[in-house]
C-alpha cells in the first residue's frame, strides 16, 4: 500500500506589505486525489496539516523533522512563487523552498506534487540548477505548473483525475499532465510540468515513463540527480 500525504493552505497571513489572496478551493485537489487513491485501493491516506497548522518548519527540517518522510506520494496545494529559479511554496505564515530541504530524507517521498503556481520557468535555461544541486535519495518525480495554476471548484477536479489515471496504471508523470489539461479551460490554459530525477537523462526519462508501482521500485540515487522536464499545455 502506497503512503499518501496531503497538505493545503486556503488562507494566508499578510507578510509585511505583501498580501496573498485566499485559495478557497485548494483543499479540493488534495482531498480528491487522496480519497480517490484510497477508494481505488492504491494508498492509505494521511492528512499532514492544513492552513495555520501547515508550517514550513515541520517540512524543511529546521525543527529536526521532515513531515514528508515516510511518504511515497506527497501532494501540496498553496501559493507558489519562483524567483531566481528557486520555487517557494507560500504557506499560511511561512515559506518552504522544497529544492533546499524537506525532500532529501533517506525515507523521503518518491513523488511530490506542488499544486501551486510557477514551479519552474522552462524558458530559463538554468531551471534545473536548484533541483540538481543536492542529493535526494528517494525523490524521483516532482509535478507542478510552469505557469500560474488555476484554482476553482471545477479545475481542482484535476486531483481526482490524477489519482484515477494512476490507479489505471498510467505513468504518474503522464497522469499529471493529462489531469491538468483535462480540467483546464480552452480560454487561458495552464501549463502542466513534470520533473523526472535520474542518475542520468535516460534514467530520468525512464522515471517519466514509469507507473507508480514501477516508480517505487527505482533504486535510490547516490548523488545529485539529472533532471528532465516534460510539459503540456493546450
Amino acid at each position, binding site marked *: 500500500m502506497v503512503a499518501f500525504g496531503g497538505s493545503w493552505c486556503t488562507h494566508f497571513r499578510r507578510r509585511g506589505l505583501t498580501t496573498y489572496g485566499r485559495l478557497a478551493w485548494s483543499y479540493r485537489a488534495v482531498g480528491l486525489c487522496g480519497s480517490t487513491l484510497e477508494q481505488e485501493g492504491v494508498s492509505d491516506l494521511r492528512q499532514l496539516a492544513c492552513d495555520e497548522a501547515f508550517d514550513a518548519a515541520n517540512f524543511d527540517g529546521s525543527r529536526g523533522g521532515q513531515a514528508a518522510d515516510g511518504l511515497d506520494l506527497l501532494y501540496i496545494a498553496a501559493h507558489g512563487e519562483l524567483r531566481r529559479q528557486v520555487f517557494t511554496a507560500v504557506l499560511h505564515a511561512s515559506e518552504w523552498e522544497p529544492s533546499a530541504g524537506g525532500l532529501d530524507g533517506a525515507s523521503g517521498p518518491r513523488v511530490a506534487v506542488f499544486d501551486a503556481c510557477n514551479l519552474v520557468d522552462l524558458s530559463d535555461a538554468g531551471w534545473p540548477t536548484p533541483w540538481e544541486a543536492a542529493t535526494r535519495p528517494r525523490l524521483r518525480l516532482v509535478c507542478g505548473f510552469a505557469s500560474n495554476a488555476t484554482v476553482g471548484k*471545477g479545475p481542482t*477536479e484535476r486531483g481526482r483525475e490524477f489519482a484515477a489515471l494512476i490507479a489505471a496504471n498510467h505513468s504518474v508523470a*503522464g497522469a499529471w499532465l*493529462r489531469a491538468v489539461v483535462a480540467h483546464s479551460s*480552452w480560454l487561458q490554459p495552464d501549463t502542466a510540468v513534470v520533473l523526472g530525477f535520474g542518475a542520468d537523462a535516460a534514467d530520468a526519462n525512464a522515471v517519466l515513463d514509469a507507473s507508480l508501482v514501477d516508480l517505487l521500485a527505482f533504486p535510490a540515487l547516490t548523488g545529485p540527480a539529472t533532471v528532465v522536464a516534460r510539459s503540456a499545455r493546450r
Partner: protein
Amino acid sequence: MADLSAYEVRDWLADRAGGEPPPIFELWTSEAPSARSRPEEVADVLRTSLGAQTWLVPGSGAVQFRLEVSSPIGEWAAHSADLLVPLMDACQAADERSFDPVDLEPGASGALVAAVRSRLPDADLPVIGPGGGATVFADRNALDGEVVVRRRTATVGHGRWRRPSEILRDLAALGPIDLDDVRFVVELGYFEAAARATQQVMRPVYLFVIERVQPEQAGAGWRRALAVPATTDDERPLSLGLETWWEGE
C-alpha cells in the same frame, strides 16, 4: 475573447447581451438515451482509422482511446498532424459542429501531441471547455486520447440574457480581491464539462479567468476560473449544465 481591467467588465457584458439569446441544448446522456445517441460511432471511427482500443466513459458520451506505438515520446510531436484527420472525423461523428486543430507549443518536451477544439456554427459561439474537443498525449509506448464532444439532441429554449448586475453578483464567489491588481480574460461561449461528468444541458456562459501575474518585487501570482450562466429561462437552476464549475449560491 477579451482581456479587460475589472472596471471594463460591466460595459463589456452590456455590449454582449444584445439580440436573441443563444439556445440552450439538451445533451445525450446514458440515463436519457434517444434515437440520436450513438457515441459508439465515435469509437468506431477511432478503431477503424487508427486501430485504437476504445472505452466509453459511463454517463457522458466521451470516448477514451489508446493506440500502442513504438516511437519514443519526443518523436510524436512530428507526427501530430497525422492524428488530426482521424481525430476530427471522430469529433464529427459525435456532434455537428466545426472543429479546428489547436496550434501546440513546439518542442520535444511537450507530451500533448494533438488537440482539437470545437465551435457551434448554429449559435456562432465557441465551446470553451474544459470539454468540447479532443486531445492526444504520448505516454510510454502508447498514445492516449479522449474525445469529449457530447451529442446535442434538442434545443430546449433560449431564455433571456442575464443582466450585468446578475453576472457581477455571481463573481462575488471570487471573494475579496484587489481590483487594480488583476486582469479579467472573459469569453462568451458554451460550457462543456470534462470527460467524467454527466452533463444534461449545454448552455451559454461567460467564462472568466481572473489572473494576477507574479509581481516583480514580492508576492505570488494566481489564476481563478469560473463559469457564469449568460442566460436563464427563470425555471431551470443556474447550476444546471455547469457541473462542478458552478460556484454560485
